[in-house]
């Protein structure tokens, strides 16, 4: 089918593009100005979520439709992964944010190097993997812009055709300038690039709107809605096969692997780490991002398949499927929409270029160039040099991307190039994830995993690329290098069941993870490494605002420290850093303060990366760094001090209470013994006195003699009772004694108890009222023990009811399960705080006048504790209801006899 496409003049397109880029400059500039005045615009969680959408590049904008046109839903795993990952952010990303803020992390390379002991070698390796891995991805953006520009202006599909092919170069250079201005405003890379982030968020809005506009236009203007479009597609053999999974990625395993791959990418891509972690203002921004970002992804994917179907139906092979989004409006003659789509695609591409080059430039300057520079002891103001290096790195990265695009970017589709980059950064996954959650992961393990994974990645994914373009012998692919079939890049070790990308990801990540784990297990971490491992893995156990832990020993001469700061940060910033520390310490700075070294290291880390900062501070520190044990000791101290101090406080309180309780028991025991002693001595006194009187006074008359003998007898009985009570109680306390549970008629027991105490009541002039008790109420109890409880309660009541006016009532109620016996007196009552205490051993009733020493105790004080023991052993409960002045009612329950 021949398609006639409405084109636009190149000058007009270029003009509009430059105008649009100018708008970006203005936005970035305004926001940066406002930020300088302290009014941050990007603190908004919406801006944060939109900046995360830098994930969607021209791969998404143009490439998804291209992929969908041939492989149906194969375009989706790339977005399903991040949508799922967003749900893990509150757990995973929060931890990264804590660590990054405390350690002043600047890039993903810095993050991993810092975790494994701040070594420059590791930082350099990660930086290298990122640069090499992401370069094709950058080239892809330039390719997309160039291709869409060519199509829009000439109607032809070649990506670079003579003069206009270099639109890519123009765009590349403009982007480089933009990034140099807004991506390197501060030396301290941990400081936020507010203008840059605002521009990125704006671009995210533009690309989404442009894509939705294209989708709506095609579905509703070119077709009569989605149903009509799909109905037409159903008639087309090329499209109908897209309905099935089979057309997509090869197999279910490939599908799952691609989702996992994109989950790794959203976390590990240098630009994603930049916007999600480095540019993050506050953890609370995550809350909105965790639903808004997935929603953004959903919206931008909504029209992908409809556009692909429309493209196949209306354009077919006339233009590459990657260009359908732009070509469809052009074919319909909607030039304004075509221009908008072009701007949207440019937005997607430029956003990615800006953030990615910012992140890569920081890595290149801090991790690749600076270590060499430091050894040559260059000029005073290293900081200015560093900014220059960073700007140069931006230019170089962009130009390298352009070079890659010109040399190798022709042959492959947008998505396949992007996936190779995804697979490269996914190699950071094991070291990254292990670093966050596995304390035993070591630097050697990280090296091993990264190196092996990257090697396999290059072999399985880069070599086929190179072979396809003729750079390497094609028979490597078909027969293996030197004819070794097992090493065929696309069927490593004979595995030929997976599609190319899944095959590469499977082998590289599998061997990467295995190498990381096994080498980690086989090696030991040094001091610095162990320290960092603990700081990373336990990041959430430390408070958010807690300062970095000082892992230095001894101090440094202040002039040397100052010289170092001035050399890197400049005199002004250097002074500010020291001032900051002074303020925190309350005025004075001590030469021998390890905390100062830590503070300076951390300030330098923000500018030059943690590894270089570590080396520099070590070069001026007076003493060697700490050994493993010292470090673990310090960490244990700091990480556990807070934990322990809290625990200690709780334990102390527990101990204090236990101690108090013990003392209380001790005191009660003393009181008890003293009371029992008193109670025993009182009858003994009478007995001895009258015995002696009778002995010494034989002249006493018979009546007097009889009277005194009677007293001796009664006091002896009293003594016996007392001793029995104490013995009973001791026995009850030990749970001993024989119990005979049988049906007992409650009315009888109450009557017997009343009869036994009747004399007491008569003597005291107290009325004892027995309410009629239903003779059928039978409880299950030991009759004698039950009687003892009643006797105790009746004896107790008679002691406290006022003489002469006293009145004690006994009543019984019953429900389905229990009988409840109440003994009520009209005595002085019991204060609420004493109501539980009176059932405790050794405790004299609080309603007595005075304390145990001065007041006269009434009995041993064992009656109520004994009663409680009995009642509880019978399965009931005993309590008192009273208020001071209102008498007291003792109640207890006993189970009713059932069955009989």
């Amino acid at each position: 089918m021949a398609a006639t496409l409405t084109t636009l003049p190149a000058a007009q397109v270029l003009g509009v593009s430059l105008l649009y880029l100018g708008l970006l400059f203005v936005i970035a500039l305004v926001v940066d100005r406002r930020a300088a005045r302290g009014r941050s615009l990007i603190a908004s969680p919406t801006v944060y979520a939109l900046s995360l959408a830098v994930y969607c590049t021209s791969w998404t904008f143009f490439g998804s439709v291209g992929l969908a046109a041939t492989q149906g839903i194969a375009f989706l795993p790339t977005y399903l992964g991040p949508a799922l990952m967003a749900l893990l952010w509150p757990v995973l990303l929060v931890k990264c944010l804590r660590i990054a803020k405390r350690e002043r992390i600047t890039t993903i390379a810095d993050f991993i190097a810092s975790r494994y002991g701040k070594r420059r070698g590791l930082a350099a390796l990660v930086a290298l993997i990122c640069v090499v891995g992401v370069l094709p991805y950058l080239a892809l953006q330039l390719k997309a812009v160039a291709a869409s520009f060519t199509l829009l202006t000439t109607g032809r599909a070649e990506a670079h055709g003579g003069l206009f092919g270099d639109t890519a170069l123009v765009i590349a250079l403009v982007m480089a300038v933009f990034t140099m201005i807004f991506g390197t405003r501060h030396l301290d890379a941990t400081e936020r690039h507010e203008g840059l982030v605002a521009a990125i968020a704006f671009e995210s809005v533009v690309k989404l709107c442009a894509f939705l506009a294209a989708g709506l236009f095609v579905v509703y203007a070119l077709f009569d809605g989605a149903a009509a479009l799909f109905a037409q597609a159903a008639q087309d053999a090329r499209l109908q096969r897209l309905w099935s999974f089979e057309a997509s990625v090869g197999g279910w395993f490939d599908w799952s692997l691609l989702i996992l791959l994109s989950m790794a990418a959203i976390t590990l891509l240098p630009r994603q780490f930049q916007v999600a972690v480095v540019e993050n203002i506050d953890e609370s921004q995550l809350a909105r991002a965790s639903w808004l970002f997935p929603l953004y992804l959903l919206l931008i994917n909504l029209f992908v398949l409809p556009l692909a179907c429309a493209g196949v139906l209306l354009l077919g092979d006339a233009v590459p499927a990657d260009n359908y989004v732009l070509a469809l409006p052009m074919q319909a003659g909607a030039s304004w929409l075509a221009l908008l789509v072009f701007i949207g695609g440019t937005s997607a591409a430029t956003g990615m270029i800006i953030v990615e080059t910012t992140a890569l430039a920081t890595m290149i300057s801090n991790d690749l160039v600076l270590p060499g520079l430091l050894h040559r002891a260059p000029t005073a103001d290293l900081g200015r040099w560093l900014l220059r290096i960073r700007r140069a790195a931006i230019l170089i990265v962009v130009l390298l991307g352009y070079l890659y695009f010109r040399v190798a970017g022709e042959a492959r589709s947008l998505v396949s190039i992007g996936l190779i980059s995804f697979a490269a950064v996914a190699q950071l996954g094991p070291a990254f994830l292990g670093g966050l959650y596995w304390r035993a992961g070591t630097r050697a393990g990280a090296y091993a995993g990264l190196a092996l994974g990257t090697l396999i990645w290059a072999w399985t994914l880069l070599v086929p690329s190179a072979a396809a373009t003729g750079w390497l012998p094609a028979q490597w692919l078909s027969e293996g290098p030197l004819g070794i079939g097992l090493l065929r890049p696309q069927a490593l070790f004979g595995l030929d069941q997976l599609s190319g990308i899944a095959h590469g990801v499977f082998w590289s990540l599998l061997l990467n993870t295995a190498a990381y784990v096994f080498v980690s297990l086989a090696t030991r971490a040094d001091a610095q490494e162990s320290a960092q491992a603990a700081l990373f893995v336990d990041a959430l156990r430390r408070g958010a605002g807690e300062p970095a832990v000082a892992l230095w020993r001894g101090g440094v001469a202040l002039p040397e420290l100052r010289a170092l700061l001035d050399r890197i940060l400049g005199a002004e910033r250097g002074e500010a850093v020291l001032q900051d520390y002074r303020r925190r310490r309350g005025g004075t700075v001590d030469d021998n303060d390890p905390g100062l070294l830590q503070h300076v290291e951390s300030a330098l880390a923000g500018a030059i990366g943690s590894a270089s900062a570590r080396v520099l501070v070590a070069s001026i520190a007076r003493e060697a760094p700490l050994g493993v044990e010292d470090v673990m000791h310090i960490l244990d101290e700091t990480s556990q001090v807070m934990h322990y101090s809290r625990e200690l406080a709780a334990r102390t309180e527990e101990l204090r209470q236990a101690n108090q309780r013990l003392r209380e028991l001790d005191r009660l025991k003393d009181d008890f013994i003293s009371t029992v002693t008193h109670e025993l001595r009182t009858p003994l006194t009478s007995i001895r006195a009258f015995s002696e009187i009778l002995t010494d006074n034989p002249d006493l008359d018979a009546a007097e003699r009889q009277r005194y003998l009677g007293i001796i007898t009664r006091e002896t009985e009293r003594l016996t009772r007392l001793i029995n009570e104490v013995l009973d109680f001791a026995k009850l306390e030990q749970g001993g004694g024989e119990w005979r549970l049988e049906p007992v008629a409650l009315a009888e027991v109450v009557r017997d108890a009343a009869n036994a105490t009747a004399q007491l009541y008569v003597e005291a002039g107290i009325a004892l009222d027995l309410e009629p008790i239903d003779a059928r109420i039978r409880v299950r109890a030991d009759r004698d023990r039950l009687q003892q409880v009643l006797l105790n309660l009746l004896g107790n009541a008679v002691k406290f009811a006022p003489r002469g006016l006293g009145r004690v009532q006994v009543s019984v109620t019953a429900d389905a399960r229990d009988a409840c016996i109440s003994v009520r007196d009209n005595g002085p009552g019991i204060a609420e705080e004493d109501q539980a205490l009176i059932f405790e051993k050794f405790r004299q009733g609080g309603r007595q006048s005075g304390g145990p020493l001065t007041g006269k105790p009434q009995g041993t004080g064992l009656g109520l504790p004994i009663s409680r023991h009995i009642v509880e052993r019978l399965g009931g409960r005993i309590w008192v209801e009273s208020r001071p002045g209102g008498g007291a009612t003792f109640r207890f329950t006993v189970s009713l006899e059932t069955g009989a």
Partner: protein
Amino acid sequence: MTTKRVLIADDEENIVVSLEFLLRRLGCDVSVARDGAEALRQAQATVPDLILLDVMMPGVSGYDVCQQLRADARFAGTRIVLLTAKGREAEIARGRALGADDYIVKPFSTRELSARIRALLGLGTV
């Protein structure tokens, strides 16, 4: 020699009976109080020569009574003997500190009690 007036303050009926018997035998004029407050009232009314004071009584304790009487110059010549069923050193010391003249631990020997009271009241041997 005039008849000595003795006040017994104790809430144990039978002990009071025995003490009353013993003091009468010594020829004393005996009055009885059942608690601390009553003991104070009676003491102020009669200013006895000797008071046998139980430490553990309801209301005002023997110690309190002792302390209050010792604060009053009228009782300078009154001998005070504390009776207690808790024979601990600390309590004896406390009684002494409050101005008690003697301290008798229950159960007591009637002969010893009589001897001590005779000594305190300056009575001859029988």
